[in-house]
């Protein structure tokens, strides 16, 4: 049995350096083993092994069966922070002004009240809205829209003149291209006397949330 000691080991001797890999230790040893693409003179780090496991370099990914592993889930939750007055029989896009949390960052556009995912793939989306019994609402709908089309809706109705009061929810799983596709949340309500109605605020009354599921 022989032992080879070296700080760098280049695997491959192709004339194109990006076809070669280098296993190396950084100039100042720090207990890590690096794997980089390129020749031994100037490798670009892809990942490093250390006593705690493996860390991918910034921008590098790890895949299993063709699917990228994401350690920290992409997700967001927002709610409307003040009562929204909506006109009778008028589809209204809700303004989710307040963030509960967002990872890595919010994708909400305050100008359009729409969300634009920046990573392509499937997202699970949930939305609920609470209709107040100000006046006499008799029909209430909630919608999740992708671009200009309805993905899903919740619906409750009774006879005109009979009041409804409560929460209507809806959920969807849908694909977004990570660049131009958007989603938003809309409500539509009818009052027995054609008056305006109120969507109740607070984090547990009217809110939305989404979670990235993956791309496949």
């Amino acid at each position: 049995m022989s032992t080879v000691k070296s700080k760098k080991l280049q695997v491959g001797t192709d004339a194109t350096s990006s076809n070669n890999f280098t296993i190396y230790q950084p100039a100042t040893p720090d207990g890590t083993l690096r794997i980089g693409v390129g020749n031994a003179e100037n490798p670009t780090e892809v990942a490093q092994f250390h006593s705690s496991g493996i860390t991918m370099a910034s921008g590098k990914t790890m895949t299993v069966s063709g699917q990228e592993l994401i350690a920290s889930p992409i997700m967001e939750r927002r709610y409307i922070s003040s009562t929204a007055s909506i006109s009778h029989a008028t589809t209204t896009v809700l303004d989710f002004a307040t963030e509960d949390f967002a990872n890595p960052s919010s994708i909400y556009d305050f100008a359009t009240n729409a969300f634009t995912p920046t990573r392509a793939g499937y997202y699970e989306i949930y939305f609920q809205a609470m209709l107040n019994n100000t006046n006499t609402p008799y029909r209430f709908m909630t919608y999740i829209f992708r671009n200009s089309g309805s993905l899903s809706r919740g619906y409750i109705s009774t006879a005109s003149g009979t009041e409804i009061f409560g929460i209507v929810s809806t959920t969807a799983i849908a694909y977004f291209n990570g660049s131009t596709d958007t989603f938003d949340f809309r409500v539509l309500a009818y009052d027995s006397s054609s008056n305006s109605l109120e969507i109740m605020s607070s984090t547990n009354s009217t809110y939305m949330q989404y979670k990235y599921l993956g791309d496949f």
Partner: protein
Amino acid sequence: MSLFNKITTLYTELTDEDFAPDTGTIMLQNDSDGKGDYIKEWNHPTLAKPTQEQLDGVQ
């Protein structure tokens, strides 16, 4: 006065069902962008889409 009420003042024959999703022919919308309610779609078979002047004239 809301846009719905202005329209139904001009066209008294319209009912809530004319504004219902899927089955109605008129769709009103508000994008919560500060611009208020507007007519998103008007596909009524006999009644013409009201002009802004007509809507402004409704008291």
